[in-house]
């Protein structure tokens, strides 16, 4: 394994770890809650954070200008140079919950209205949607759904694939044939058709937590074929290795062999495979939610946030509504880099 690959592995792993942490603590990093509306400013454009004001004076603290409607328009704004709001760190704002248990009020950054100024201060780093909800905050909260749906579904299908692949590899025919033929169908089918049809047979209207669990379950069920096939092949080769044969000669049972010798061998394929499945399954969640079959409003997912961009006037006038579609790209790249170098590392370790 080259030094470059090793660096790549470390970078990809750190990037993903930090991203997940930020998303998990979305309440802190987001200036607003995902459902805080601002009916005064639908489709506000991303704000510029200034250091120099309109008169050309430098300011020590970055600031944003307030918004006022442009003449003759309801959804186009320009900066109101009479209102200046400094961007503060660690400001007290809306209360939020982290991990469903801990309650806080402090946000990483925010703006505060000055006393006596009529318009409440708002900061839209990535613009606002049609209800005046902050896109930046919603992308962070949406990551809670999309990123973790990917990871959970990948874990689920990896566990399923591990179990079925081991059973198929250890117990041989006819169980092997049945499992592998069914798995083949799951692999061969156009995954989107399969995903949608499995989703079709489940209830459409549910609470968002239940829908999330359902979506994860559906993706996991649809995706077990590939890991199962990989695991089976590893099991088949591992059970013929000398130390396994020796252990069997000493009277080791099937389950002992599986746990002690075969399971560790499968890890070298299942972990990189998981790193490849995570972005795939994340996109599956995004697609389902986009089509209205996944997590629904008001809770954001990168998919249902994109759904509004299907309206022509939205997509043509407000480019920032497309940003949730860009969010999966870095995750995709990082996961692929991780899988790539991880595979090599595990290969060189064997």
């Amino acid at each position, binding site marked *: 394994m080259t030094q470059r690959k090793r660096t790549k592995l470390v970078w990809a792993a750190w990037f993903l770890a930090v991203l997940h942490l930020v998303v998990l603590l979305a309440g802190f990093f987001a200036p607003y809650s995902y459902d805080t509306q601002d009916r005064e400013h639908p489709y506000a454009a991303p704000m510029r954070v200034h250091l120099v004001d309109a008169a050309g004076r430098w300011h020590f603290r970055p600031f944003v200008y307030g918004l006022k409607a442009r003449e003759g328009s309801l959804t186009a704004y320009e900066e109101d140079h009479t209102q200046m709001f400094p961007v503060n760190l660690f400001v007290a704002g809306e209360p939020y919950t982290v991990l469903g248990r801990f309650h806080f009020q402090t946000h990483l950054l925010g703006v505060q209205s000055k006393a006596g100024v009529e318009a409440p201060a708002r900061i839209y780093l990535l613009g606002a949607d049609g209800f005046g909800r902050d896109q930046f905050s919603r992308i962070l909260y949406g990551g809670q759904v999309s990123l973790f749906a990917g990871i959970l579904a990948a874990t689920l299908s990896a566990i399923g694939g591990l179990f079925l692949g081991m059973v198929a590899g250890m117990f041989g025919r006819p169980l092997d044939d049945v499992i592998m033929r*069914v798995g*083949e*169908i799951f692999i061969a*089918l*156009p995954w*989107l058709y399969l995903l949608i049809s499995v989703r079709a047979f489940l209830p459409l209207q549910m609470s968002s937590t239940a829908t999330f669990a359902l979506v994860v379950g559906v993706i996991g069920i649809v995706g077990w074929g590939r890991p199962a096939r990989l695991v089976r092949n590893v099991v088949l080769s591992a059970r013929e290795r000398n130390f396994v044969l020796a252990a069997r000669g000493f009277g080791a049972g099937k389950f002992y062999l599986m746990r002690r010798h075969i399971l560790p061998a499968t890890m070298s394929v299942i972990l990189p495979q998981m790193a490849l499945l995570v972005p795939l399954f994340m996109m599956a969640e995004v697609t389902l939610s986009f089509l209205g079959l996944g997590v629904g409003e008001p809770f954001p997912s990168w998919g249902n946030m994109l759904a509004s961009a*299907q309206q022509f006037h939205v997509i*043509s006038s407000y480019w920032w509504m*497309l940003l949730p579609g860009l969010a999966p790209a870095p995750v995709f790249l990082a996961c692929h880099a991780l899988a790539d170098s991880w595979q090599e590392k595990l290969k060189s370790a064997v």
Partner: protein
Amino acid sequence: MTRYLLRRLGHGLLIIFGVSLLLFILQQAAPGDFLSDMKLNGQISEDTAKVLRAQYGVDQPLPRRYGRWMLSVAKGELGYSFAYNVSASSLLAPRVLNTLLLSVPALAITWIIAVPLGVVASAWRGRWLDRFFSAGTSLALAMPDLLLALLAILIALRTHRYPVGGMHSVGAQDWGWFARMKDLGWHMVLPVAVVVIGSVSPILRQVRSSMIAVLDSSYMRAAEGHGLRKWTLLFRHALPAAANPLISLFGLSVAMLLSVTLLVEVVMSWPGIGPLLLESILSRDLFVVIGAVMLSTLLLVIGNLIADVLLYAVDPRIRVQA
């Protein structure tokens, strides 16, 4: 030849059978259906719903329902649509044609682009051209297909050069056939482009890696030593040797392409299977859902069969075996 083909055909039929069985079992597990949703409508009494259930045979046990469905498949009906009260196939048939219209050219273009570029990338491995392609395919892989489709709409809206979704211009049915074809081609440009961009990367990568495996072999070096021209070497000798895994990939690429096509159809309002599938899911029109998935499976199996025939033509080992 016939034995080999029959075996592959049998395999394909088995997949189709397996998928239909799977869908019926899943459907059995589903809570509620179109008719139970109808109960929410106050104008339809409990008795009417019961009669309808009996009439459609929804109250029958699973094996019998499956048998009836098989019969209707044999009659070419694919079950019936609750929502439209016609046979599912009459809804699906025109849609399938539209999906094919989108996916077949896209499949052809994808392969026509991917193979030469992959060969070139493998021949100049590690050089700037290869790096350029590798970066490009990474980027295209990372871009969600959804975003690509939305961007295509944005391009259409901004440039006014291309139609914004749909398949025909308004009033096109009164035009002459040539004008209609031109109109159709004009509507196809963006959707086909999105499908191609969405599916070309993995194929290009596969072409590159299987070409590299061949180029590293000693007989290639020997051919190079004999002074064969580079292009002859690459396309006349190396590519056929590397073709085997690529032909198998052809079958898989059909599945991948169909998924991208589904998405593009929905986003760019192309009247293919995709939008119908979505609509029938939302109205719980289960036979249409099953029919759509079965048709996509059929397309996939056809793609795999084409791959098998190609494999037979290209690989002498299979000819000897069969």
